[in-house]
């Protein structure tokens, strides 16, 4: 056996085998053994689209554009090809968007929100939407320019912000003085002192008022205070009214016996009635003004 021939033969066989296997792999990878799906995309503009532009689903390429053309009515038709194994991601409710990033090539993005939807049939036509960031840039730049101009206007040498900042500086400078914030707000230590003084006086006044209210309370509601006396007086009035009532009843009885001279009695009756009504009104009035009258127990604070 020729050793050299054996080695060369082994080398050739291994190389051929490897190359052949790689070619089969490459053919498989390029979809030679698979059906291809075709898709037509109708677009308003084919700007940036060229044969070979990838069609991506979730960031992974599943197909590519094969050709561009115009239809009979001048619309743009983009034809794309997919391998059978990738075509399953295309659904009837899929959306196709043309993405043109600032860096990198254009690509067609497929979004299939519902993967249970029926599959897109071969050779169907879909609409291609466009999301062009570069078109929005000039608008954005204009806006930013306007904002910058405003900012510049605000921050100019004699501008409002400048003045405000100067004022803030004076204010904070005052705030570091003896009377702090108060001095900052009022402008000078003298005014701040006046305010603190009046505050002190107010406090003293409130203390006095406190004491006075306590005394008034006692005067009004104590065991033999004014309120108690008024209540007693009212009770007396009520009692005398009751007596008047009894008297009245007696008078009516007498009047029934005495047939004559009723006119005088009637006049008397009217007068007494009037007096009773007035007394009642007085009682009611006092009741309104002194709600404690209902509840004779006076609670001391």
């Amino acid at each position, binding site marked *: 056996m020729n050793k*050299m*021939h054996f*080695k*060369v033969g082994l*080398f*050739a066989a291994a*190389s051929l085998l*490897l*190359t052949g296997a*790689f070619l089969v*792999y*490459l053919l498989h*990878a*390029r*979809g030679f053994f698979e059906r291809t799906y075709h898709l037509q995309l109708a677009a308003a503009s084919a700007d940036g689209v060229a044969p070979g532009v990838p069609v991506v689903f979730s960031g*992974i*390429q599943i197909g590519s554009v094969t050709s561009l053309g115009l239809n009979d009515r001048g619309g743009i038709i983009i034809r794309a090809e997919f391998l059978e194994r990738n075509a399953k991601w295309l659904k009837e409710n899929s959306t196709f968007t043309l993405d043109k990033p600032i860096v990198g090539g254009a690509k067609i993005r497929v979004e299939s929100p519902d993967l249970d939807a029926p599959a897109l049939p071969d050779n169907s036509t879909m609409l291609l939407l466009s999301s062009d960031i570069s078109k929005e840039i000039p608008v954005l730049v204009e806006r930013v320019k306007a904002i910058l101009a405003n900012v510049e206007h605000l921050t100019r040498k004699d501008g409002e912000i400048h003045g405000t900042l100067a004022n803030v500086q004076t204010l904070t400078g005052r705030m570091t003085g003896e009377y702090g914030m108060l001095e900052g707000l009022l402008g000078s230590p003298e005014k701040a002192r006046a305010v603190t003084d009046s505050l002190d006086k107010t406090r003293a006044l409130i203390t006095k008022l406190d004491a006075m209210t306590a005394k008034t309370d006692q005067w009004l509601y104590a065991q033999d205070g004014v309120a108690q006396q008024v209540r007693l007086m009212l009770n007396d009035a009520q009692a005398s009214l009751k007596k008047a009532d009894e008297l009245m009843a007696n008078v009516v009885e007498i009047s029934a016996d005495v047939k004559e001279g009723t006119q005088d009695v009637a006049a008397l009756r009217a007068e007494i009635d009037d007096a009773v009504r007035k007394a009642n009104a007085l009682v009611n009035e006092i009741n309104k003004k002194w709600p404690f009258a209902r509840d004779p127990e006076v609670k001391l604070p």
Partner: protein
Amino acid sequence: MNFLAASIESLGAKIVGWFTVAYGMFAFLARAGLLLLDPTTWNRATFDVVIKQVYFTAVQILHIFLAYAVVISWLIISIILSTARDFGLSEFASEMTIRTLVLELLPFLTALFIALRSGSAINTEVALMKVNNELDALAHCKVPPMQFEFLPRLVGGVISVITLSALAGLLALLVGYLAIYGVNTAGFEPYTRTIAKILDFQILAGLVVKCVLFGLAVTLIPVTAGLETPKKLFMVPVSVLRGMMRVFLAIVAIEVVSLALKYI
């Protein structure tokens, strides 16, 4: 005036010299091609010489060459990967790896490797045969040197460059996969897609044509340079020197033209 005339004359002589060399080379190539098509050429003896040539050019250095290919692939892939990550372009790393290594760098380095090792040897051998009148002797004994010495070398060189480039390329693909995705099958799908995207029919055909041209350059140029040697022993090193310079220029020219065709 005299100086100008002399410089123009020397320029003309140089151009004529280049044309003579180029013509000699292409005439030789044409004769070799015709002989290749001639069915009587392909007998047992010619096959044996081709096999011997393939053995010396490719099989003998296979382990060294593959080790070298793995090391250089690993280095370049690491550089590409880290740079791509730094710039946030990792998604393009595998594509860049395949393009630079498999399509350009490895065939180029294979051609240089074979030119250094076999091309120089062929050049020296042919030059010595020429100086020692062995070629005439062979022709006299009805052993045409074209059929038994030169054509097998050309064929062997072409086969060797193609197979070694292919093996190195496959190895680089494997090394690239391991470097990018590690030892698991998770990256198989995207890697396959990238390979499928890059290696279309045109690119593969271009790669094969480039390898054939490289193979011819590293064998044809040394043979013709050896045949040009004047019959003086001290001219042998000069012949080898010239031959190797031409080989180098030819390899670079082929690479540049292939790149220009591919990307311009």
